[in-house]
């Protein structure tokens, strides 16, 4: 398979109002239960701009296999509106927005695929609105895994001015096994988002006014603690599959194993798949294998085994 790894324009950009937030999304024209791809990243990040089109290769690969696919920009990221309420500058806000988006789209229950912070959002959507979810694939989610990711340490290596092409490239190099997927087009695409007025405003709120430290992080800590306590005693309500890059710098495999151990305590059918020569963006570095195993998992969900 060869993939356009930058743009989903060929599938048509669409918009809907999700609980008051104008939300950008892409959907192919295949019917059936959609696989919903949820990107990672943080609102207003300085040298990254995670968005729906990070999934371009996977979207295209699943489309070629005949799967219905949807990808959307989470609240405050990509081209979706920024949060309006103080408490929504958080993953909790993004969970509520994701639930509103999925309800408004009205094509559930969905198969969710969440990467990194998007994995945490997808997991919380599953717990809080299980009627919307048929299954969940978690990908390299250091936000969800017990223990600590290495993002802050990696980000401390930056030497370029934030938001410049060099910094955007470096950010993704830090997080990858190899740099082949970090094309100039992809970097330029992200820089356009970073330079948008909406993204600048988000950065001013999160870093300038400090909401990342005063709202985002405290809520995340509380929600993680509650999640771990919950998973110690309760089964996860939907079929679950973990995919991890063997060489993930910010989300080392060791914490992936801890997450897997936590899940299988009460969800013993959960499987974990590890892709070699793949970093945090395992789905971009090993796209064909990623698409194959997601499709395999979905076939199992459909078959009920």
């Amino acid at each position: 398979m060869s993939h356009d790894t930058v743009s989903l324009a060929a599938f048509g950009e669409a918009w809907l109002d999700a609980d008051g937030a104008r939300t950008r999304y892409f959907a192919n024209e295949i019917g059936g239960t959609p696989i919903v791809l949820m990107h990672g990243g943080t609102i207003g990040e300085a040298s990254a701009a995670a968005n729906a089109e990070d999934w371009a290769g996977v979207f295209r690969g699943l489309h070629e296999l005949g799967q219905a696919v949807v990808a959307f920009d989470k609240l405050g990221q990509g081209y979706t509106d920024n949060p309006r309420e103080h408490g929504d500058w958080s993953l909790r806000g993004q969970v509520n927005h994701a639930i509103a988006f999925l309800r408004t789209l009205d094509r559930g229950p969905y198969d969710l695929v969440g990467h990194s912070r998007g994995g945490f959002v997808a997991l919380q959507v599953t717990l809080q609105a299980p009627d919307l979810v048929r299954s969940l694939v978690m990908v390299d989610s250091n936000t969800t895994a017990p223990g600590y990711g290495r993002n802050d340490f990696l980000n401390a290596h930056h030497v370029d001015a934030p938001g410049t092409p060099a910094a955007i490239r470096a950010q993704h190099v830090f997080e990858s096994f190899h740099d082949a997927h970090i094309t100039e087009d992809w970097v330029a695409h992200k820089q356009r988002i970073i330079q948008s007025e909406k993204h600048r405003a988000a950065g001013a709120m999160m870093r300038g006014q400090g909401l990342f430290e005063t709202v985002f992080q405290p809520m995340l800590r509380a929600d993680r603690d509650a999640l771990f306590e919950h998973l110690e005693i309760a089964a996860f309500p939907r079929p679950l599959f973990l995919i991890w890059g063997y060489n993930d710098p910010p989300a080392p495999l060791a914490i992936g194993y801890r997450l897997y151990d936590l899940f299988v305590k009460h969800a013993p059918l959960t499987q974990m798949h590890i892709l070699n020569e793949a970093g945090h963006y395992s789905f971009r570095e090993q796209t064909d294998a990623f698409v194959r195993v997601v499709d395999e998992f979905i076939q199992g969900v459909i078959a009920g085994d």
Partner: protein
Amino acid sequence: MTDVVPPSIVFLAETRDWDATLPAFASTANAVALELIANVDEASRQLTACLHDLGPGPHHLVALSRSAVSAARVALAMPDRVASCTLVNGWALAPGGGRAPLSDDAPALGRARVEIYRSLIQCGMPCPTLLVWSIDDPIGDRDAAAVLNEMFVQRQRETEIRYFARAGTDVFRERPAAFNRMVSGFTAHAASRSRLLS
């Protein structure tokens, strides 16, 4: 016109049979089960002869438990004949051989392991390789799996690892649908890769 011999999926084990697995592959591949001799050196020769008999291939090997040693060894020795390796709970390949009982061929098994490790580090597996581990296998040890994985990933980009929970050595019997779907997808991928390279 010469008859074209299609690539086979060769299911390997020493004592267990794959009767329940073969029908799942019968419509898409020439699925063959080979019961290997319980001596690693003789088993490797047996597998080599089998691949010659099956034709040029390249063929897919799906090897259970101790037969993973012979599969890896033959794949390394006959790169043109093997399209992919799926090594299922191959604890005998891991350092120290996992928790399996001591076998009569333990010295030969030890030598085979060293030979395989050296090849993995020097040149790597010549084909896509899927390592399958049941983390609750009584004779398994995930730390041993992790060390072994580390050797396989060094020089073969297309190395993948799959973990199953609450399943033992015979994961293909305990979780047949999931196992068959996984092998089917992986071998199809490896077959298309072989066609691209040929």
